[in-house]
């Protein structure tokens, strides 16, 4: 059950009374409430509760578009913001990159609400603190565990998008962010293991915690941190690579998601997040990966971080194939990018909050399951390595040359897991890497993850994105370990 939103309709009424006569306007109200709890070394850290409410106003007039974002939701504040947005529309009309009149108007109603079965407030504060302290204590299994940490946060967000063409989109989201981590040290060697949702987060309530291993994974996390202290470095070699879903999340995000964002292809991000090795001409025929590669834009997994009914431009979100049987079908571009290019896209025009404009984001981008069990994936590898939990990521601005590292690796020889190694890294080139996709795990290996920290845009925005994937095997990948 989501918390009821406050007086958003009243704010809309006020805005309608002050907005000047223009060709088109929209107002997006966002109110959020966040609560954060954290326990470090068994000590409760300062608790924090945040409330935020603001409006993002867009005005289009005479071929110009401008925006203003304000937390002053009084009549004076909204009027000032509307005039500022109008002023920007006038100022920029002669210099506009495209004619904003070509953008589709939102003239329909819609709503979306995160399903929640165990609300955040169904457990009182004292019990939540006790729960977190127990989880934290479970991480301290040795004197060599030198730092240990559990945390649990909740975010409720209500949005209301209203347009001059009678569009009215109301959505409410509930997010949960659990995390566990253990830091082990011996001399000059420190190893960190994390889990319990640290690499994912979810939409929903407390019912999501069990699925994410919170707090049950605490002991295993600490044990593996200790094992890594004495483990050898990952060898430097070319071998087969088995990526668990929690690393597939990063792989999909960086080397499929970002390069397919249409605003990057259009060059908007060239000064900051970067461009793309993918061009507009490649859609419809380019073989992005092996024929086992099926990637979908999927807003329908309600527990996934970026599930929604409509994006922040008001476009309805639907399950759509982006890559099918390895062939590139369409980009990740929202209504604005679609209008600029004439290409098909998806509903992924999103803003991180009321104070930023919507841009193309990848939302939920998932790799569809195949038909191999985990046992079969491992058995298929004669000389290889399994990698678990991302800890390092770096990729060029065209999203091609990448190097990623994980917290833990396991050597695979002749179809069997043999031993643990630390600091496993691998590198490759996106355009080639996905061609080496050799096996895709079945539904039993499929996990839902994502990250709340995807950065992009000018001005900068950090946003939730969801990725779900089975475990996957890649052939002949360059892997390596430590400094020497």
């Amino acid at each position, binding site marked *: 059950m989501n918390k009821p939103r406050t007086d958003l309709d009243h704010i809309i009424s006020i805005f309608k009374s002050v907005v000047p006569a223009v060709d088109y306007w929209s107002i997006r109200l966002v109110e959020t409430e966040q609560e954060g709890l954290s326990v470090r070394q068994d000590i409760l850290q*300062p*608790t924090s509760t945040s409330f935020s409410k603001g409006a993002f106003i867009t005005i289009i007039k005479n071929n110009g578009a401008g925006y203003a*974002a304000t937390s002053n939701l009084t009549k004076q504040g909204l009027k000032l913001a509307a005039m500022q*947005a109008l002023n920007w529309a006038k100022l920029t009309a002669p210099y506009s990159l495209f004619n904003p009149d070509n953008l589709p108007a939102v003239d329909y109603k819609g709503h979306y609400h995160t399903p929640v079965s165990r609300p955040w407030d169904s457990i009182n504060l004292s019990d939540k603190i006790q729960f977190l302290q127990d989880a934290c204590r479970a991480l301290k299994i040795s004197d060599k565990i030198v730092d240990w940490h559990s945390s649990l946060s909740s975010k409720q967000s209500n949005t209301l998008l209203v347009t001059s063409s009678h569009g009215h989109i109301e959505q409410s989201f509930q997010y949960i962010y659990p995390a566990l981590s253990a830091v082990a040290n011996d001399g000059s060697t*420190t190893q960190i293991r994390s889990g319990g949702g640290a690499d994912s987060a979810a939409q929903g309530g407390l019912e999501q915690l069990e699925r994410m291993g919170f707090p049950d994974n605490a002991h295993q996390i600490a044990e593996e941190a200790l094992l890594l202290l004495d483990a050898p470095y990952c060898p430097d070699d070319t071998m087969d690579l088995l990526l668990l879903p929690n690393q597939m999340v990063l792989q999909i995000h960086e080397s499929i998601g970002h390069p397919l964002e249409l605003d990057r292809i259009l060059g908007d991000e060239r000064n900051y997040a970067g461009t793309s090795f993918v061009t507009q001409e490649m859609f419809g025929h380019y073989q992005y990966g092996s024929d086992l590669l099926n990637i979908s834009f999927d807003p329908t997994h309600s527990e996934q971080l970026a599930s929604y009914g409509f994006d922040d431009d008001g476009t309805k979100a639907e399950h759509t194939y982006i890559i099918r049987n390895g062939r590139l079908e369409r980009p990740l571009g929202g209504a604005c990018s679609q209008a600029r290019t004439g290409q098909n896209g998806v509903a992924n025009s999103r803003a991180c909050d009321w104070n930023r404009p919507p841009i193309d984001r990848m939302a939920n981008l998932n790799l569809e399951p195949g038909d191999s069990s985990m046992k079969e994936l491992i058995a298929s590898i004669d000389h290889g390595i399994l990698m678990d939990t991302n800890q390092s990521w770096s990729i060029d*601005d065209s999203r091609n040359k990448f190097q990623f590292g994980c917290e833990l690796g396991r050597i695979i020889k002749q179809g069997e897991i043999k031993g643990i190694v630390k600091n496993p890294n691998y590198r490759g080139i996106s355009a080639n890497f996905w061609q080496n996709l050799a096996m895709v795990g079945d539904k039993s290996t499929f996990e839902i993850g994502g990250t709340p920290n995807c950065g992009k845009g000018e001005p900068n925005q950090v946003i939730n994105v969801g990725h779900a994937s089975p475990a996957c095997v890649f052939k002949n990948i360059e892997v390596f370990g430590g400094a020497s």
Partner: protein
Amino acid sequence: MQDHFYLLSEQLFGKLQHDEILLCHFEGEASDFVRFNHNKVRQAGNVTQQTLSINLIKGNKQTSGHCELSGLIENDFSLSTRILVSLRKQLDLLPEDPYLNYSQEINNSENKHLNDLPETGEMLEQIQSSAHNLDLVGILANGTLYTGFSSSTGQRNWHSSKTFNFDWSCYHQTDKAVKNNYSGFDWKNTRLSTIMDETKEQLGILKTTPRIIQPGKYRVYLAPAALNEILSMMSWGGFGLKSHRTLQTPLIKMVTENQLLNPAITLMEENNRGLAPGFTEAGFMLAENVDLISNGHYKNTLANARSAKEYDQTVNCDHETPRSLNMSAGNIKNSELLSKLGTGIYINNLWYCNYSDHNNCKITGMTRFACYWVDKGELQAPVNVMRFDDTIYNILGSNLVGLSTEKELLFDPDTYHKRSTSSTSLPGAIVENFKLTL
């Protein structure tokens, strides 16, 4: 915003019970953002935001709340009072906090850089004109940033600065571009024109056929913006007191094995630079400078209020990451940089760095924008993007040839949540055997 914040906090202090202390912290901005692509405007607008944080303390217990303010005192007092009442109820349920730490002294301060800057629309016209026929992409941010502190114990601090930050690239084609930044307290049209003229000259070199570089070890010049990326990585856990005491610092070998950097390396947190506020969210005043690395030796860490209490140190920062880093200059004159480099790569920018081996402070990342092959001291051709992967003990240690005499002050263009007040002052560096891997 200053009067509003002080009035609001005074009204909140009037709501306190006799054994309560309230710390109020304020962050605000009124910023214009103009985003460019192909020297046209992609998006433009204004963001006005004001965030109040209140920390309620009773005995050794504390809890905090945050809210966006409207700027109208009646509304904001009503909202923040509701939060205060809610925090008071929470406080009864919380255990004592052994690391609660806030300033017990009263140190008032006021620092305002409210110089005149042109209207953003005027800047926009100047950019359009000076970048005529260039494929310019980037962002112009212009406006005022505000930070305030007020406590029920009687302390008041205020810091505001009106600055601009124009961060952009001009493209020749695909990934071949010249990156620039013009930022500060005073906007001069002539300065922008000069930078654009220099950009056009560099674009001429980018039009020559790129040189394909093979993985290997190269002698390189890291321009200040490129070196700043490496220092930013070092700063991610490298200088915080907590990361040192819990042995998570990437500089762990400087702590446990007395590993040294090159004697030319001296790093300092320069708190008196004036862009960032000189006080913390807990009301502590910052020392003017903190020596982090002196002549290659690890010196001090950055300690926020909580870590300082836990590890019995003096508070000297808010977030245990440098925000006004200063790197000492070297002795290579800028006019001699190319000849000193000889044959190698002139790297203007690095990008997307991360640790590839944290315990050895090994960093990987990409070259980006205008990087050139240099032969016998002459710029020859652009090079395609390459990945580097090397340890800080090589780059700023045994393989450091020298640092430039001239330094650049780089304003951080980051605008996550709000505009950054961080900056770095640093030279460029010539490094040999710089490892390129892909």
